[in-house]
């Protein structure tokens, strides 16, 4: 076991300030001295709050090309360019029945029926008036998001793309995603947070999900942002009886990430399966707090994360499982693996349990360490190069946390991850 680095704790104390900072940014531009020990203080100090022009949300050839190679032909797709829903590149179902909707926040708010539940979500954030909130947030970036309200299963996978490019430089883009699923509805959702080129900007994204009885949501979030971007994501998902939420986070990019999960297993027998693969490099930092709240009996949660840290990257995964009084016969598993690949990199994984009920089954395992040297030696003794041996071991670890069914396009992204590892230098202690 590696010594728990104190600097991770420092990062953790700085991050809440950053969150607050992001919120303040809605009403005032950032001043260089306002961020105490801010990790990106200099970068952000240079930011001014600008106003966006329509041209900044127009599709570009780069985006079109990216879409072609990443989004399946037959999938529904909602594209947000630099924070704003962009219709020309969207492929959405035309005939959802009248209770349902798929669209951007801006569109859905125009419909009084949809506006009502969206307002309800915002109430949870203690914002009295949606339009007031939007005005506030409009001051810094822009505000839009995805709104999906399903009264029945969606017949095809839905891809939501956040595309950020150089036009968003210096902006903090605020996005609010709302998802509401009626009983027995199913949804296969892939959420891309991607960028074209290194650009300094921030994404402040919140996601509210409400799964009805027996509903099933299978969600993948792929974060492949270039250097300089900051993603603050806060996800709240509440599950009704017998519903299921499967989530896979793949963090490939070079942006800084704060990703918070709050999963409320509110209905009896509801279950969540959270997986994550995180590849951290350079001076990347990632904070990943997860809270799984077993509020009802027979609820099930499974968490499996694997983080790789190279160069001077820092990562912290903290997962707290809470078992409320009366939430009997629940089952919870937490497994976290941190692999430190360079001496300057640091990782911390921390599983926590808070149990107030009887008859619970909880398992957790967490470890941080280097790659297994004996295994490396074994592979090399058989003629496999250090680079390839390392890639094989990393691949083995990652495979261990992947969900059973994975999209071929994600498979391809992962293999790119193993190949990237072949570019690293030869073992230093030789």
């Amino acid at each position, binding site marked *: 076991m590696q010594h728990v680095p104190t600097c991770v704790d420092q990062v953790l104390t700085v991050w809440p300030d950053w969150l607050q900072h992001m919120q303040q940014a809605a009403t005032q531009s950032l001043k260089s001295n306002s961020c105490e020990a801010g990790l990106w203080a200099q970068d952000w100090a240079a930011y001014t709050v600008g106003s966006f022009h329509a041209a900044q949300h127009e599709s570009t050839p780069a985006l079109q090309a990216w879409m072609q190679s990443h989004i399946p032909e037959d999938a529904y797709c909602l594209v947000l360019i630099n924070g704003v829903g962009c219709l020309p590149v969207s492929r959405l179902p035309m005939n959802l029945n009248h209770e349902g909707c798929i669209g951007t926040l801006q569109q859905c708010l125009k419909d009084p029926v949809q506006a009502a539940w969206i307002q309800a979500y915002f109430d949870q954030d203690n914002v009295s008036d949606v339009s007031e909130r939007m005005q506030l947030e409009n001051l810094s970036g822009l505000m839009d998001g995805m709104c999906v309200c399903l009264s029945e299963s969606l017949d095809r996978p839905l891809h939501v793309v956040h595309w950020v490019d150089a036009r968003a430089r210096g902006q903090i883009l605020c996005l609010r995603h709302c998802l509401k699923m009626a009983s027995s509805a199913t949804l296969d959702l892939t959420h891309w947070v991607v960028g074209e080129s290194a650009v300094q900007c921030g994404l402040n994204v919140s996601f509210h999900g409400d799964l009805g009885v027996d509903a099933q949501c299978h969600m993948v979030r792929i974060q492949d942002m270039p250097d300089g971007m900051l993603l603050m994501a806060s996800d709240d998902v509440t599950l009704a009886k017998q519903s299921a939420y499967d989530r896979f986070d793949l963090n490939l990019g070079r942006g800084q990430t704060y990703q918070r999960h709050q999963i409320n297993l509110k209905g009896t027998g509801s279950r969540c399966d959270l997986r994550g693969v995180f590849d951290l490099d350079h001076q990347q930092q990632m904070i990943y707090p997860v809270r799984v709240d077993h509020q009802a009996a027979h609820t099930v949660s499974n968490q499996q994360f694997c983080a790789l840290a190279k160069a001077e990257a820092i990562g912290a995964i903290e997962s707290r499982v809470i078992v409320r009084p009366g939430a009997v016969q629940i089952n919870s598993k937490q497994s976290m693996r941190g692999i430190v690949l360079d001496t300057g990199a640091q990782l911390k994984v921390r599983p926590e349990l808070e149990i107030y009920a009887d008859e619970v089954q909880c398992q957790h395992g967490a470890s941080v360490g280097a790659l*297994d040297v*004996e*295994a490396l*030696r*074994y*592979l*090399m*003794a*058989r*003629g*496999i*190069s*250090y680079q*390839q041996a390392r890639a*094989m*071991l990393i*691949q*083995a*670890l990652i*495979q*261990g946390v992947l969900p059973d069914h994975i999209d071929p396009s994600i498979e391809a992204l992962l293999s790119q991850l193993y190949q990237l590892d072949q570019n690293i230098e030869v073992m230093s*202690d*030789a």
Partner: protein
Amino acid sequence: MLTIKGLSVSIDGACILNALDLKVPEGQVHVIMGPNGSGKSTLSRVLMGDDRYQVDAGEIRYRGQDLCAMSPEVRAHQGLFLGFQYPVSIPGVNNMTFLKTALNAKLKALGQPECDAMSFMALAESAAKTIGMDLEFLKRDLNSDFSGGEKKRNEILQMLVLQPDLAILDEIDSGLDIDALQAVAAGINALRDSSRSLLLITHYPRLLELIRPNRVHVMLSGSIVKSGEYALAMELESKGYGWLEPLTEGV
């Protein structure tokens, strides 16, 4: 094939091999016997290029080349093979993928065309047959949840697929039942020919009865103190190592 002269090796300042001399000519099978802790495994790992050990003195020539100048993978490409005393388990790495990767790495390094899936399967199948190993093991993760005997068989399988010129087998016969021992011996004998050499490390004459080595060496305190014919192995079996102790003095 292999010539070791005056080899001294240490780890963290502790001397483990001490002015060791050993010669294994082409086409011969040599055996090293010796009490626990005498340095047999250390020698095998040093030959394979384990970077934990420091070579303080002496030289190792493999087919006339300086072995110490080669990285572990180059040694493997050049025909060296070590059957580990304790093969590691690597969950998540498929046994077949691993072996195919290893074979192709070697072929590539030798400038030969890589082996496709079909011909690899044929190779693996015939090797498995030689040692009576179920092909199901190829589908599993590398040594993961294999019994001790299954791991040893898997080492022999790898050896047969990789066709090394010099195979060093470290206690390949420890913990094997009689059937497994026969199978391992069959694998070893299948590899044996006039151009290949083997160096076996063992405690038991049982394997040697099936293999009939050309020469037996005794290692004590990091040196070879006595060498002889096959009969020496029998002598050790009845007398133990104590009578050889005086030979270590002055080494």
